[in-house]
């Protein structure tokens, strides 16, 4: 999996995206510019209904923006799905497939023979904390384990950019904290670029290297725009997320984001 491109362009970049609901009738977000580098975890924070998911849809290529471009390592991929991985709040595992076949799905869809796909996925189960679940059905797993499986499936999509739509919010608080730090560790370790959207400022500040603050109220006719970019003062070394969350630096950062959200 490529970690960075030769041309020095960020892994994922959005240039002046303007997005709408119902084909241009209703502008949701205006002039959205953002960039995510390899090995970076970036959060886009905004209130509910401010158009975060719409932006993610456009970045994934599922929808076409009114204006602007989406670049992947400098290459224009606007409106072309399948180039970046997408992970949602729901794990969306297929109940009719065992975990091994669920995580193999992107490979099989891309045309890899089933036995080859399985051979490729099986060695990864241990690293993703999923050993022993290969032959199980999704309904037999806990929420956290299902989310791990969903992440392994996302990883096997083979893209180095992952978009996350509130991926941990369906989990209970403790599992969520565990999964969050586990995910960020994995993502940085694998040199992936991750962009997560969330309305939870605490979540953003514990996960991210940088935070984009999205402000606006498109439902009352005020299109959202990126109000600011905040760097998270992540401590160097091995400080756990829980400890970091108690430091003054963390609280300052959180205060700043909250005030920007208005």
């Amino acid at each position, binding site marked *: 999996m490529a970690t960075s491109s030769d041309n020095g362009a960020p892994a994922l970049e959005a240039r002046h995206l303007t997005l709408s609901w119902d084909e241009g009738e209703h502008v949701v977000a205006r002039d959205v510019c953002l960039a995510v580098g390899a090995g970076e975890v970036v959060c886009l924070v905004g209130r509910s209904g401010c158009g975060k998911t719409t932006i993610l849809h456009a970045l994934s*290529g599922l929808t076409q923006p009114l204006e602007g471009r989406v670049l992947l390592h400098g290459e224009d991929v606007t409106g072309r*799905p*399948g180039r970046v991985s997408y992970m949602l709040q729901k794990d969306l595992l297929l109940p009719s497939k065992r975990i091994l076949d669920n995580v193999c799905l992107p490979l099989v*869809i891309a045309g890899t023979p089933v036995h080859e796909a399985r051979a490729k996925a099986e060695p990864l189960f241990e*690293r993703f904390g999923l*050993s022993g679940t290969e032959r199980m059905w999704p*309904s037999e797993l806990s929420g956290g384990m299902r989310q791990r499986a969903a992440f392994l499936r996302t990883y096997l*999509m083979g893209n180095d950019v992952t978009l996350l739509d509130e991926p941990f919010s369906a989990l209970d608080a403790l599992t969520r904290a565990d999964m969050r730090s586990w995910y960020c560790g994995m993502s940085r370790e694998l040199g992936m670029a991750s962009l997560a959207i969330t309305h939870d400022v605490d979540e953003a500040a514990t996960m991210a290297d940088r935070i984009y603050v999205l402000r606006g109220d498109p439902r009352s006719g005020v299109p959202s725009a990126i109000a600011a970019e905040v760097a998270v003062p992540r401590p160097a070394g091995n400080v756990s997320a829980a400890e970091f969350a108690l430091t003054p630096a963390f609280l300052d950062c959180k205060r700043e984001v909250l005030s920007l959200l208005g």
Partner: protein
Amino acid sequence: MDSHSSEPKAEPTATSAGEKDGASRQEGVAGGERARARERRERRARRRRVAVPTLTVACILAVWQAVVALGIVPNFLLPSPVQVVYALAADASLLAMHSAATLTEAALGLVIGTAVGFVVAVLMDRFQTVSLALDPIVTVSQTIPTVAIAPLLVLWFGYGLAPKVVLVVISTFFPITVSLVGGFRSVDPDLIDLMRTMRASRWQIFWKVKMPAALDQFFSGLRISATYAIVGAVIAEWLGGFSGLGVYMTRVRKSFAYDRMFAVIILISVLSLALMGLVDWLQRIAMPWKRAERKED
């Protein structure tokens, strides 16, 4: 999962997973006792589920036998259960022959009806125009009473196999279509989007996501269709034909052999139940993940 706890602590992944495993092992010990208690409870519940309806049926049969034996209803109007069993035994080979005819018509009609229902459902799901065009027709076709069109079918297709099969097809395709369309629509749109981000084709989305998701509702529809199939075949035979349980029924009715009348009614019920059992068995084969889901509950 045990492998994690032995891994070095340096890797954050292994540590958190290992801790969780330790907790689940402790839960495992307490869980064993709880599982046994639950099993006992379940066994008791299962016994009750069998015993109560069996007793009810036994009571009804006893009352029925008593009513006839005491002469409350004259015997020539109502045969006793024992007489019905005798009639069933006496006519066994004749009934077997007629059953075979009915089952052939029902099976043939059900297979064709399911195929038609499947194709219609797929087209309705794929093309909105087809859905709009067929929705009212499919619904109206179900308001037509089968007994009313059966004589017409006899008129058009004669006394042979064709009118029976056509009637069975008409009465079985509807539950299949409705259940499949509902099943296809029950798929989470986010899941379709996710498949699109994997660059899945429409064909792949259909076979990997939509069809498995629709199976549950499809089998509910098929259960209903299976009972309709037997009843449809019998009605068609009743209105004209040379063999089948419907033909047998008209004959024993004309000779006032009420014991045989009851015998054939019971036989039809048994055949319908057997067909439903077959559908349930097919569902268990086709949906192995359902068993795991039920266990979780």
